Every structure is written in C-alpha cells, then in structure tokens.
C-alpha cells in the first residue's frame, strides 16, 4: 500500500472515533449512579427514572410516533403520485413543479419553520400536533419525490407503454406495473420520511402548539437544564432501537436489492 492509503486509513480511524466516542461515553454514563459525569458506581436508577417516572417524556414519544407515521403515510402517497406524474408525463408547469418540489430540500429548515409559523398565524390555525403534521408532511414530500423519481428513472417508459399496449387501463398500469416497480423507492421514501419526522427539531420548534411536544422538543427542554442522566438512558434506548431498526431495515433493503 502506498503512503496515501496509510494517511487515509489514519484519518478514517480518527473520523470513526470522532463519530463513536461521544456515543460510547453517553452509553457508559447512563449506568452511572452519580448525577454528574464523574463515575459514582454502577446503577440502573436512570433507566428506572426513564421508564417509570417520565410520563411527559413518553407522552412526547407518543406524539412523535403519531406525527411520524401519519406524515410518513401522507407524504409517501402524495410524493409517489407526483413522482409518477413528473417522471412519465408532460404537462404545463412541469418545470416549475420540479423546482418547487426540490427547493424545500435545500432551503434551511428555519425558513420552512418560520414561513409556516407566519402562515398558520395568518390563516388563524391554532398551533397543535396537527400543524406539526402539516409541517412534517411538507418537508417529507420532497424526499419521497426524490427517492421514487430516482427509482422510476431506472425503467424505460416503454414498460408502461407495453402495459397499455397489452390492454391495461390507466389504473391497471398504476397498480400492476408502476407501484410494484417503484416499491423499493416508495418504501425507502417512507422510511426516510418517518426518520426525518422523528428527528426534526427546528421546524417542529416553530410550529408545535402547547401540549404538542415531540421527543426532540422534550429533549431540548431537558438539555436547557444541563446534564441529565435520564437523557443518557434515553439515548441508549434510542441507539439500541435504531440499531435494531437499522439492521432489520438493512435486511429488508438487501432483500429488495436482490429482488
């Protein structure tokens, strides 16, 4: 191996350490008896606190899941149909729609949060979990659009023409050909949408109403009071949950790719 390879492996190792060290420390100190970040003996008290004495936290988890699933579903439907239309049809204003569907991906989150806040105030829609759902669906749609469009681009339109040629109506082509073909794209679009929704802090911060706290909002309010070992315990639970989900999603993905 040449020297460049040696240099790059050193940098890569450092990068991986940089990525994982904070998480490892978090995990370690979730089992710490002391309330501070100095070691005070092994203990599960923060897990007990997390699971049995953190009702508002679990309430925010519930809110997050509701918003993630509903906005994931709606954005997947709207985004998938839009991707089919944009990929395989010509219509007036297509170019503009493509730009409008791409712009939310690149604009800073705060712009979307602020503009929606002002918009909701303008139409006198009270901030609630529903406005969070509307906002999350809005920033999720472009991701679904992107994923499904990328998948559809792998196929030639002649496949759809073949379906019509063989007697398919519009709806037959959609249900029997287009959706099954686009399915890996649709699924990954949905997964990304759910992940982004669970993850979002900035936009939610602006559009969430009182009592509509999501998990990131709740964590934010806890962070403002400094180090809390309950968050350490929560982090471990989240890391474990994402690892399990990631592995199973990885398997699902492998299955789809093989297909």
């Amino acid at each position, binding site marked *: 191996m040449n020297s*460049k*390879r040696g*240099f*790059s492996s050193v*940098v890569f190792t450092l*990068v991986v350490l*940089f*990525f994982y060290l*904070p*998480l490892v*420390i*978090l995990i370690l*100190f979730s089992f710490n008896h002391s309330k*501070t*970040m*100095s070691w005070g003996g092994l203990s599960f008290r923060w897990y007990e606190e997390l699971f049995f004495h953190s009702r508002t936290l679990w309430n925010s988890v519930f809110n997050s899941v509701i918003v993630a699933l509903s906005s994931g579903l709606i954005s997947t439907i*709207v*985004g998938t*149909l*839009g991707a089919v*239309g944009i990929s*395989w*049809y010509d*219509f007036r*204003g*297509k170019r503009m729609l493509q730009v*409008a569907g791409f*712009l939310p991906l*690149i*604009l*800073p*989150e705060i*712009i*979307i949060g*602020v*503009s929606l*806040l*002002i*918009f909701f105030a303008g139409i006198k829609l009270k901030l609630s979990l529903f406005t969070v759902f*509307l906002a999350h669906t809005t920033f999720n*749609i472009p991701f679904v659009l992107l994923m499904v469009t990328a998948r559809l681009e792998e196929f030639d339109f002649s496949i759809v023409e073949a379906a019509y040629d063989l007697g398919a109506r*519009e709806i037959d082509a959609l249900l029997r050909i287009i959706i099954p073909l686009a399915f890996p794209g649709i699924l990954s679009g949905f997964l990304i949408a759910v992940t982004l929704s669970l*993850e979002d*802090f*900035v936009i939610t*911060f*602006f559009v969430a109403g009182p009592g509509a706290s999501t998990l*990131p909002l709740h*964590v934010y309010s806890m*962070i403002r009071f*400094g*180090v809390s070992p309950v968050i*350490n315990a*929560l*982090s471990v639970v*989240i*890391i474990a949950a*994402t*690892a399990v*989900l990631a592995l199973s999603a990885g398997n699902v993905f492998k299955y789809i790719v093989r297909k």
Partner: protein
Amino acid sequence: MRRNAGPLYVAPLALWLCCFFIVPLGIIALYSFMSKGVYGGVVHRFSFGGYTALFNPLFLTVTLTTFLIAASSSVITVLLALPAAYFIARSARKNLWLFLVIIPFWTNFLIRIYAWIAILGNNGFLNSLLLATGITSHHLQFLYNKYAVLLVTVYTYLPFAILPLYSTIEKFDFSLLEAARDLGATVSQSIFRVLIPSIRGGITTAILFTFIPAFGSYAIPQILGGSDSLMLGNIIARELTVTRNWPLASSIAMVLTVVTTFGVVLFIRLNRFQTVTTAPEAFTAGGVDGDEQ
C-alpha cells in the same frame, strides 16, 4: 391515443406544495417589505425597513459570523471527508465502513448535541476527567462559543460530505493514477493532478451539503453557541418570537433563501457544465424518433 393523466398524478403534490410551501414563502417575501406593528406583527404598509435594518452593524457582524462559521466548518468537513471517503472507496469492505459512518446519524440529532454537552459541559466528562486527574483545579468553559458550534457542526455534517465524495471516488478509474505514475508523476502529483480534478463534482456536492445547512443553522448555535456565535437563524427566531419584528425576521429569512438558492443554482450550473463536457449523449438521446439501436 391515450389521455394525458399527468396532471391527475401531480395534482395532490402541486396543491400541497402550493398551500404549505409556496404561499408561506410568498407571505414572508411580502412581509419583508412591510412595516412593523406597534405590538409586533406587521402593518400592511410598504416599507424597506426590514432591509435597511440589515445594514445595522450588529446584523453585518452576525452575517459575517454566520458566513465564517459555515465556510470554515465546510472546509474542515471536506478536508476530513476526502481521505475518509478515499479509504472507504479503496477498501474491500466498503459496505461495512459505510454502515459504520451512517449508523451514528440514525440516533436523534438532539441526542448527538446532548452528547457533546455531556462531554464538554461545565460538569461534563472532560471537566470531571481534568479535575480528577488534577490537571486543572477549576471547571473550564468549553461550551457556548464558536469553537463548540464549529465542532458540532462538523460532527453533524461530516457524513453528508463523506457519502457524495465516496460515490464519486468509487466511480473513479484508479488505473488512471497508475498511468500518471507511469508517465512520471509522483504520488502527490498524480493525486492532485488526476484524482482531485476527476472528482471535482463530488467535492462541490460535499461543500454544498455542508455549507448550506450550516449557513442556515439554528439549533446548534442556539444550544451550544454564545454571544460570539450568534448566527442568522438565531436572529430570525429572536425577531420572530421575542422582539416580534416580523418584517425584519422576514427580510433576514429572504436573505438566507436568496443566498441558499444562489449557491445551489451556481452549483447546478457548474455541474451541468461538467456533464455537458463529459457526456454529451445525455442531451441528444431521446430525440424525436427513437430509431437508434
């Protein structure tokens, strides 16, 4: 002849984007040209007030800080990402390494920020360690300054730089490096004259993917920053919720929007130029009559 079902498919998309993206953005654009109300909000009277206020030294400083933090974090990120991506692309176990890079970022964004608070905070891991080992005798302030913001920004956006760099380096034909060496280039010459120019597209993508979100950053400076690291995002939020100067909040938002859009358009132009010079057939294929075999 088949009826065109295109509009039917895109109708929900167009409607949703119109209602919840274009109209709200339009409202901000409109508000940025209006006057501030006495008790906050806006008065429907035309004014450049929102924009003239931007030339206040405070906002100029904030804009400069925002630009410097975004630019330096994207430079550091790309400098780290380049060798890391190169290593992954040349490794036999690409998928494992990629997985390793992505996994930490499936944990919650705020948890990742919290991890740094737990390490760098006044009662954090590092301070405890320093005190326990007797290196220092009092708590050190690591957080609430621009270096903390820079560190966590790099931490957050590093994977977004590694992935596009990886995918371009992976496509690079490494026999070209051998050809360069064969023609008399040194290792570093072959890298700087052959590899780097060939993966220019990936580098610009990586810079874009880190600079743009960092420029519009809100949460990281809000949580980890101090008075030396106020960014435009924080000012928008403050003007919107605390000062309630909506025209000013809107005009800053417009500045962010315009800068971001300009950056992306520039990027697309650069990249399109590249695709035209490398793959002209992409523009001639799919012509009127598909007779070509």
